Each structure stands twice: as structure tokens, then as C-alpha cells.
């Protein structure tokens, strides 16, 4: 869904050339087996060696990768095939792959001879000029090793990438080296290494310098449901070149955000144009229907949201350079850059300043100030700053996002807002508070025979509304209905949605409303003269405890939200309330809920205010979460008792 071309920063994997493999004998094999009794494969070595050479006036960058994988279990299916990726910015060269077959106490080399080249195809990017080579290792079996070497030639030294220490298999040793000279001013830093396991060495030999990071005994990387991108928690090394000396002259590469901004400005330099008749007309209409600048901005934003369809083409520099506004207007499709460009262009026609803005989505853990490289961002939006100083982050790739909200994927991220060739601002996008993304569900229910029968009305605001949007615009009505059941469903798997109507938001009222009629079968129990019913028809996050025995990584949530539920329950004729649960309030930092029961004539009024207030939950917060969820779950368990009145 996002498209700036900074694809795989740390293309998985490894290493240098002439490292002697650390073993070649069966006794060592036994040792490794003993050390990793459980594993199917382990890397004996994984090395990346990045060369930065000053040649004449320019800086040449290329990286050699080496990986040596030992197979410890019979058939390790997923590891017998490998892929090497390239693109128009990173040329892949000199791929050499082989299997070392353990036979008669020594290794016999069987080379890989068939490489198949494929163009990359993905769901998010319609056309992508990146490619990969794929191949099978022959004769993979326990005790054998598969070895891969290749080179990546970097077209632009501003795009050099660092090194992700962990991989999908455990490693005996992982090494990252940068070989260069004193003339190259390098920034580097190790991230997510609280135990300082990454050993660093800087070795000078004459003018040449080798920076080396190595780690022994690296466990495999953890990816769990809801994990954020691995770069948020797995150890890795980031690096970039500030500048270098060539012929006594200092040449800047990426010394700071200013230089990054200057480079980025070159991508949008040629977007000024005489607008097409169609585009001018669209803006004219919006302007005529608006009373002030903010209304025009809203009109422009919403026009782009509903008229420009998201389609991404990653084709060389097109991965960075947006189309002109009139082009996008004519084609009616574009990627994030094109949408940013058309918004800025349309505002310009209306005489309003909108700004090109680069931003990382929440897939990226970095900040511009710390790591001023293209690896910080992967997205582009437009920004409008209102006269009252409020910033509007206009992301039209989120088709159903209410005006004024940032999309959920850029919350908490730094935006690089470009005012002109020389001026910019780095500004943090706020996290939208739960009450702005409120979901309310108001129900009137009664009992009929063995069923709970009722009517309900759901209102979705903010990012809750945005998230629902696509699901309500489906070709097949069954898909829409399934979605309504998903958000309105309650009680049990015998929830029947009889009918529903959806009110789509207008410009004035941004909320989506869903009115529905429903029944729930076998929900309450009736014995002798008593009747039990639990009014917690929906139990958000019931018992959703996080086991710290199994969960190791943070948990990411799309947005914070509040949910209010109001139930008006008609007490059946001839019954009275025998027992009403206590009111409860669980007021946690991460999540909470209040429960309030009240009898009013022949009705029981139950209201519940629930919330989740995090977008990233770190392992050290798990116990707080569990304690809050435990309390909420306990309150969910309380049922009401009704008893037949004495006649």
C-alpha cells in the first residue's frame, strides 16, 4: 500500500568470501549437534562485507555476501531453495551456490548450475522492476552444508544498507564488515542490542580501515502474530556515509537531514505545470462550494480520496519521482507520491500552500535526525498548515479516512515537510487518542421464547470508521454482511443478523452508522423459576492474556480505540430482578472497562465503556496488560438472575 522505493533494506543474509569455514570434520559436526540439538539448520557463518572505495571523484559501493548453512535434520524443505534479490538500484552479480556433501569423512562440492530469473510480483505493487534469482541446492541432507556467495553493486552510495544480525536460523557467527579508507566519514550504530552482544572492532592498516561487527551464537529471529517489523526489536547495524575526501576535496553524501531533503527535492523539481482543463475545473468547483481555505483543503483531499485509485508502479526512478498532477487526474490512478503531488498541485491552483511530505510508515523504526537516509521513509503524503497552526497530514491512500486524521500507519512517525528547496521541518505525527476512534453500540433487547431478540445501532468514528470503509464497499453483498456480523456479532456463534442498513458518512457528518436487527439463540438459561442472563453480550479481549512463556516480541495495534456499549433490556413479563452484578471500573493504562447496571421500572440498563490505549505493547508491559485484562475478564463473568414473581 505504500510505495517509495526503499524495498528490502536488509536483504536477508550474509557474507564475505574467504572465511575458512570453522569446521570440516565429523567431530565438529557432533559438537554442533550437541549445541543445537533441536534445530533443523544453523548458519556456521553469515557475513556481509561492504566495500566503500573512492575512485576518482566518486564513491563506489558494493557488498559481498557469504552464507554457510549446515543441515542437521533429514529433510529441511524450506532451506533447500534460495533466492537472491536485485533491482534497478542494486545489481546482483556473481552468484555462486553449492552444496557440500559429507562423504567419506570429507566434503565433496556439488555446484548449483540452474539459476532462474523472475521479475518480482506482489499484491501491493502492481508493477515492480525488481527481480530475483531462485535456485535449488542439490543433495540436501543431514550433515551437508549449503553455501551461497554473491555480490550486490549499489548504484547510489546514499542507498547503502546496514546489517540485520539475526536470521531465520540460528547462527554460530554473524559478521558485518565495512572496508574503506580514512577518507570516508562513516556513521554507524548498533540498534536493539541491550546485552551488548555485538562485538565491534576498528582495524587500521595504512590508509585502509576495516570496521567489523561480529556476534557469536545468535538465536533465530522471532516473528509472532502482531509483531511490528523486526527492525523494532532485532539487533541490527545501521550505517551511512556522511562525506568523503577525493583529491583533497570534501564531497558530501548524506551528512544530515538537510542533505537528504536537498536530494529529495530533486525528485519533485519538475512537477510544476500548467494545469489541465479538467483539473482546473475540478478545483474551481471545489472552491466555489467552499467558504474558507480549510474547506477547500477538505474538498481537495476528499476528491483525491474518492477519485484517484491506488495503483503502484515501481520502475527505476519512478519509485521516487511523482507524476504531475494533471497526469494523475487524467489517469485517475496513482501511488502515494502521485496522490501527494496532485493534492499539492490542486491546492496550488486554489491559491493555497500544501507541502510535499516524506514519511516512514510504522514499518520503519527510524528517525530522520538519527539516520538521515532513504531507509527512514517509505511513504509520501501532503501537509497543510492551517492559519491556527494546526497540521493536517493528508494521506489520500487511506480511502475512507475522515478529513483531519492522519492514517493509522503514520501515527507517531516523523514527517519531513518540505517548504521549498532550502526549507523544511521534521514534525512528529500525533497518535490519535481512543475517544476520537470511538465505536458505540446501542442495543434494545428482550427475550422471546429461547432467543434474545433486539435492535442495535453502531456508530464508527475516526480510524474505526476508516478501517471499516473498504469492507462496506464490496461487490458481493455477502461480504458486506459478513463484515457487519463481525463487528455487530455478539453473544455466541448463534448470532443471527436479520437485517441491517448502513448510513455512509457525508462530508458534514464523518461517522458511519449501522442499524441492525438480530437474534441470539440459546444465550440465556431458564431453570424452574429462575433465569440467568449475562449482559456482557460482547466480551472484548476476554481472557486475552499474553503468555510471557511463549510471547517474546512486542505487539502492535493499528490504533487506540474506545468502545461504548449501551443495553436496554426489558425484563420479561412476570419476572423480577433477584440479583444484579456489582458495578465495576477497571482503569488501566493500557486497557480498561467500566460496567454499570441499573434497574429502571421494567428495564435493566447496562452500560459498558471499554478501551485499548496502545499502538505498541512492549514485553515489559505484558504483565500490566495481563493484570488489567484479568480484572476485566472477571467482570465479564457476571450474570443477572431474574426470578418469577410470586403470584
Amino acid at each position, binding site marked *: 500500500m505504500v510505495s517509495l522505493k526503499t524495498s528490502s533494506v536488509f536483504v536477508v543474509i550474509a557474507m564475505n568470501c574467504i572465511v575458512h569455514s570453522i569446521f570440516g570434520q565429523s567431530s565438529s559436526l557432533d559438537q554442533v549437534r550437541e549445541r543445537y540439538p533441536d534445530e533443523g539448520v544453523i548458519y556456521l557463518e553469515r557475513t556481509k562485507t561492504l566495500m566503500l572505495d573512492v575512485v576518482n571523484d566518486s564513491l563506489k559501493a558494493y557488498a559481498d555476501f557469504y552464507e554457510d548453512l549446515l543441515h542437521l535434520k533429514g529433510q529441511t524443505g524450506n532451506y533447500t531453495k534460495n533466492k537472491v534479490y536485485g533491482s534497478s538500484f542494486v545489481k546482483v552479480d556473481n552468484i555462486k551456490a553449492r552444496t557440500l556433501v559429507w562423504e567419506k569423512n570429507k566434503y565433496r562440492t556439488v555446484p548449483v548450475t540452474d539459476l532462474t530469473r523472475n521479475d518480482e510480483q506482489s499484491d501491493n505493487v502492481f508493477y515492480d522492476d525488481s527481480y530475483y534469482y531462485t535456485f*535449488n541446492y542439490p543433495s540436501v541432507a543431514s550433515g551437508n552444508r549449503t553455501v551461497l556467495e554473491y555480490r550486490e553493486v549499489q548504484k547510489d552510495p546514499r542507498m547503502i544498507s546496514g546489517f540485520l544480525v539475526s536470521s531465520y536460523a540460528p547462527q554460530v557467527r554473524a559478521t558485518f564488515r565495512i572496508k574503506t579508507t580514512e577518507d570516508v566519514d562513516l556513521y554507524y550504530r548498533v540498534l536493539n542490542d541491550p546485552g551488548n552482544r555485538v562485538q565491534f572492532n576498528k582495524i587500521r592498516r595504512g590508509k585502509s580501515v576495516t570496521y567489523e561487527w561480529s556476534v557469536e551464537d545468535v538465536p533465530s529471529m522471532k516473528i509472532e502474530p502482531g509483531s511490528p517489523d523486526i527492525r523494532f526489536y532485532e539487533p541490527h547495524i545501521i550505517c551511512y556515509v556522511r562525506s568523503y575526501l577525493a583529491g583533497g576535496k570534501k564531497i558530501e553524501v548524506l551528512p544530515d537531514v538537510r542533505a537528504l531533503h536537498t536530494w529529495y527535492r530533486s525528485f519533485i523539481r519538475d512537477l510544476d505545470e500548467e494545469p489541465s482543463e479538467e483539473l482546473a475545473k475540478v478545483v474551481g468547483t471545489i472552491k466555489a462550494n467552499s467558504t474558507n481555505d480549510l474547506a477547500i483543503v477538505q474538498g481537495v483531499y476528499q476528491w483525491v480520496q474518492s477519485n484517484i485509485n491506488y495503483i503502484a508502479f515501481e520502475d527505476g526512478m519512478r519509485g521516487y519521482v511523482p507524476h504531475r498532477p494533471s497526469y494523475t487526474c487524467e489517469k485517475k490512478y496513482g501511488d502515494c507520491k502521485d496522490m501527494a503531488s496532485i493534492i499539492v498541485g490542486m491546492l496550488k491552483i486554489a491559491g493555497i500552500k500544501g507541502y510535499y511530505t516524506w514519511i516512514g510508515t510504522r514499518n520503519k523504526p527510524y528517525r530522520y535526525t538519527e539516520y538521515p537516509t532513504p531507509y527512514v521513509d517509505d511513504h509520501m503524503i501532503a501537509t497543510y498548515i492551517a492559519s491556527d497552526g494546526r497540521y493536517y497530514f493528508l494521506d489520500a491512500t487511506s480511502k475512507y479516512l475522515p478529513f483531519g486524521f492522519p492514517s493509522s500507519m503514520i501515527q507517531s512517525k516523523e514527517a519531513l515537510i518540505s517548504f521549498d528547496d532550502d526549507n523544511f521541518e521534521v514534525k512528529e505525527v500525533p497518535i490519535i487518542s481512543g475517544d476520537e476512534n470511538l465505536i458505540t453500540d446501542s442495543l434494545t433487547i428482550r427475550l422471546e421464547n429461547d432467543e434474545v431478540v433486539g435492535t442495535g445501532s453502531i456508530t464508527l468514528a475516526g480510524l474505526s470508521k476508516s478501517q471499516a470503509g473498504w469492507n462496506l464497499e464490496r*461487490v458481493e453483498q455477502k461480504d458486506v454482511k459478513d463484515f457487519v456480523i463481525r463487528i455487530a456479532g455478539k453473544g455466541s456463534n448463534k448470532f443471527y443478523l436479520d437485517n441491517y442498513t448502513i448510513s455512509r458518512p457525508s462530508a458534514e457528518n464523518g461517522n458511519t452508522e449501522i442499524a441492525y436487527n438480530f437474534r441470539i439463540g440459546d444465550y440465556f438459561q431458564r431453570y424452574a423459576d429462575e433465569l440467568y442472563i449475562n449482559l456482557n453480550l460482547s466480551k472484548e479481549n476476554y481472557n486475552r492474556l499474553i503468555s510471557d512463556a511463549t510471547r517474546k516480541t512486542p505487539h502492535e495495534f493499528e490504533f487506540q480505540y474506545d468502545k461504548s456499549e449501551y443495553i436496554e433490556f426489558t425484563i420479561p413479563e412476570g419476572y423480577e430482578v433477584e*440479583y444484579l452484578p456489582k458495578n465495576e471500573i477497571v482503569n488501566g493504562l493500557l486497557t480498561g472497562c467500566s460496567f454499570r447496571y441499573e434497574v429502571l421500572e421494567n428495564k435493566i440498563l447496562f452500560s459498558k465503556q471499554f478501551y485499548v490505549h496502545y499502538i505498541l505493547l512492549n514485553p515489559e508491559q505484558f504483565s500490566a496488560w495481563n493484570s488489567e485484562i484479568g480484572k476485566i475478564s472477571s467482570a465479564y463473568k457476571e*450474570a443477572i438472575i431474574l426470578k418469577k414473581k410470586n403470584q
Partner: protein
Amino acid sequence: MLKYIIVIPALFLFVNISAQSPAQYDWDTTRERYVLSVVEEQLPEIILKEHEEYLYTFEKDQFVLYNIYHRIARLNNDEAIQRHNRITIPMNRTFELVEIKARTINLNGNVINFDKKNLKEVQQNNGEGGSRLFAMEGVIIGSEVEYYYIRKMTPSLQESNYLQMDVPIKSLSFVVKCPKHLEFDFKSYNGLANIKTEETEKENIYSLVMNNIPASREEEFAFANAKKMRLEYKLAYNTAKSKARINTWDDAGKRFYSLIYSIEKDAQKTVERYVKELNDNPSDPLTKRIRRIERKIKTSVRIDTKGSGDALDNVESIIEYKVASPQGMVRLMANVFEVLNIRAQVVLTCSREYAAFDGDFDTFNYLDDYILFFPETSQFLSPYNLSLSYPIIDSEFTAQHGLFIEPVSIGSLNSAIASVREIAAVPYSFNTDNLFINVKFSDDLEENRVDLKREFSGYNSSYIASNYHLMTDEQKLLMVDELLKQTAPGLTINDWKGVVDVEGDVDQFILNVNFTSSHFIERAGQRLLFKVGLLIGPQSELYNEDERVNPVENDYNRGYDRVIKVQVPAGYRVKNPEDLDKSVLYKDGDSVPYSFVSAVESEGQMLTITIKEYYKEIYAPLDRYEDYRKVINAAADFNKVTLVLEKK
């Protein structure tokens, strides 16, 4: 997958006719937008025109196919736009994209023509496959998008076309043209109109026109694709050579036999050497032998479904390098069984998800996948599905017909006889998910301590049984945790043990767990509400939304035996044990193919609940759908059973 392995034989040589001009086709350059009915106007999406032509012709003695594809769609909401604004033209078997035109006609009549320079190319497999891509331009809500393209292709001798979509089609047309000496045979399925044949001086023209085709329907317990209107066709006669029907089942049998069994002499020796590594013991029961050989091969040879190159098909190379194409694996296994004198027949069939194999129409389109049949046991083996083991094969190949290829020897000549027969589904007793549970309450009555034994077999165990040995302890724990969380979110696992058993007649995975959970207990004042029904894990309700259109089709037969023993806390009694007695039977004459029965017995403070649920047959007729639904829903109803415990 295998359709194109049959090389086009030299059927067409020596037929000297003048080359036809390549396909002439164009759209109506000045057309207006379609005038639609009120109902049609309101549809989120409607296909206004779906037209396809297959033109077989000779160009300078080269036999080629021109394929013309033309579509017009009206798009009335966001998803409809998403589905139609990115067009991918497959380029496999294609020499050339002869023509591509696309345009968008908007509500105001504006026409936006596609600019061909925006056409992109995606290559696969070193340039052997791939596609062309483009985005439709100017599309907004209400647009009519229209495009057609012409591809010059290597001809195929059979085609299969679904001619029904998940949205209505207003006008459908389909044409095949070929030189006079070639005759195609056609068969329409699932309500599709029949092909009309017309003979001109030089050509045979086959065509079909149909209007107002309704959208196909997705239903549970039915394969939507297999129920769609579909056209199968094949080249049946080449009258220039002979009047005999070509590409018959018999021809298929002989060709596939030769493809699988013809290996080089050296390869034969390599197979014989390889067989010695497999530790076969001829005195073992046949089932045991087959299962062991299969396991040995499947745990050492990897399948590459996408790779190309002869090595993946070559038996010697497979034995040496341990990588095979699916077909290579069939060749390896068939020859291994032959060396071991274990009688096996190659069977070709297709997935039930695609179509019911029609023995009356001999198109190779049905010969999509291989399985092996062992006549002495009447059981099957899936050669290249590594997670299944004999006698469990891909369920979509069962309860289906297939082409059985029986080797015959006449003197020193080896050949094969082909026949279409049924591939029976394995009985329900092979595919179990049984549960044995003992539940106690903690002293404070806040939580339960549960001893749970779960026995998976057959399809239910296949993934775990084939992967368990590759998993680390951490991965195993995660899997067990995931499995149990469905039943009891937030549980604490006190102790667990998992065992894979591959020594029996069918693979099993047996899990023993002891856990603590508060999930099953709710309260109403002084009463305990014990959600005993949740102990069998979440069961989904089969809703009856719209009128059912398809008969019932199960993936596979299956059974669930469950015994739950509840130790009722001292001083408490259960007010409503009778809620646990349920009996829902689907009867068919004297037999009961589907059943859910639960019964309870009480002894002192111990409540013993016994549940027997099974599905013994794959198919149930449409008019018995309601009865079938009741059995399925009985399990979902059981989920709701809540025992009320009160102090004595």
C-alpha cells in the same frame, strides 16, 4: 499442471492449405454506453460483454492459435474498480501480443483511451513465462471499462473455460474456428448452453451465445468453481489423417504409462541401488511396506513445483540430488514400487474443486494430477504431497473419478490399459479428532484444572505428523498453545506431551495436556454457571441465509469421539444435566450417514458426557440440506450448553 506434457504430435503436417490471415477483430469504435435496466444499474458490478475466440490456423506450415479476449464491465463501487482497473495478460505459451486496446467510457460519455506505451512486461522463469500488465485509465465510479487483446499462441488441443463469474454477465459469446480437416468436440456443464456447429467451405465454426448469466454462488460445503458453468473442448478428429478419434483415454493411458515407466537402463540400476537404501522388508504386511517406503522417500526428496529443467524429472538425478518435480517424484516412486514387485497403478485425475471428472468426455484437462493406486489393498498414495501419507491422499482427488492406468505385458512388450474408475474417499474412522477430558474445580471455584487428551488422525494429523520432527521445542509449545487457546483463551499450560505415531495404518498425533483455566466458569450470584459446552472447542454454526443452490459436498469423511468427565465440586449439584442429552441423526433408509449424539451419565459427583459425531459420506443431496445442517449445528448448539451448579 500436466496438461501440456503431451507434446502436440505431428497431426497437422502434410495438410496443404493456404494460410489464413491472422485474426481480424475490432471493437465498435463509436459505441455509446450500454442502456441498462434499473436493476442492472444498481449492481455493484456487471459484466456487459464477455467474448472469447480461439482461432486455429496454419501459417507457413506452422500450426498456431490466435486467442481473442474481449470484456466490457460496468463498475459501480470501489471494489468493482479495484477488480477491474489492473489488467494482467498471461503470456505463457504466447509468441506475441498481436493487439491490445483498452478504453474507459464514463458517465458523461467521455472516452479515455489506454496509451500502449504504459504496457509493462513481467518475466518469469528466465523469460519463458510471464505476463503483460497495464492499468485502466480514467476509471471512476460508474465507468464502463472495455478492453480486448489478441495473442498468437502455441495451440493447445484442449481447453477448459469457466463461463460464469461471481457477478452477472449480460452477454456471453464464445467461438472456436479451425481448418476443415480438424474437428473439435465440446461439452457444456452446469447449465451452460450447448455449442452450435457450422461448416463453411474452409472452416469449422463452433459457437455459443448466452445472455443474462447469473452470478455464481459461494456456499459452504460446496466447491464454487466446480459448480460454475463451464465449457470443455478438445481436438477429437484429424480427418486428413484418419477417421479415428484422437487423444482418447486409451491414448492417454499409453502415453502416461510410457512417460512414467520408460527410464534408461542405467537409471534402472540406480533405482535398484536406491531401493536397497529404503530398508524394505518383503515379509512385512504390505501396508507397512508401502508406508515405510513412502516415508523414506518423502523425508529425503524435496518437491520443486515451480522449477524447470529436465533434471527434476530424471530419476537418476532425483536420486542423486534429492530434488524432484511432481512428475519426477511419480516416476521415482512408480519405478521403486516396480523394482520391489509391489503392484501399483498410476492414476490421473483433477481436483474436485475444479470439476467433477467426467469419464464420458475424454479431455486431458481432467488429467491434472497423479496419484498411485495399490490394487491389493485398494488404497491410494499421493506421491508429491509431502504432508500426506498412505492411505491418505489429497481429499479433493477422492470421491472423484480418475483414469487408472494398469500396466500389461504382452510377451516382452509392456503397455497399459486405461479405465475410468472411482477414487473412493477413506472412511470416517481414518480421520478423527477425538477428545478425552477430565475437569475438576479449584477449591475457590474460580478455575478449572483440565486433563485433556486429543487424538488426531488422517487429514487432521497430517500437517503435524509430517512436520513435528522438524520443529524445535519452542515451536512445538507455540503450536500446542495456539491449539488450546481456541478452546480456552488465557489458559495456563501446566504440563504437556505430544507424540506422533506413524507406525499404525494411518498417521496419528496424540496430545496430552494438563491446563488451568477460568474460561469455563461464570457466575450468577451464588450460582456457578459452568460452560461445559465450550470444552469441545469452538464449533461454527452453518447459517441458512439464502436458498441453498448446491448439494452438500464434504472435503472428507470424519469422526469425533469425545468423553468429558466433570468432577462436580463437593456440596454442589447440577440443576440441568438433561441439557447434555442431544441426538440429531440424518437418516437415509436404514443407514445414518451423519450423526451427532451426546449423552450424560451421573455417578456420585462425577458427570460423564459421551459425544459421538461423524460424517460418513461425502455427498448429500440438495433436498436433504436442512437435515445435514442440523447435524453440523448440533455441535455448535452443544457449545452453548451451560450447567447451572447450585449448593445442595
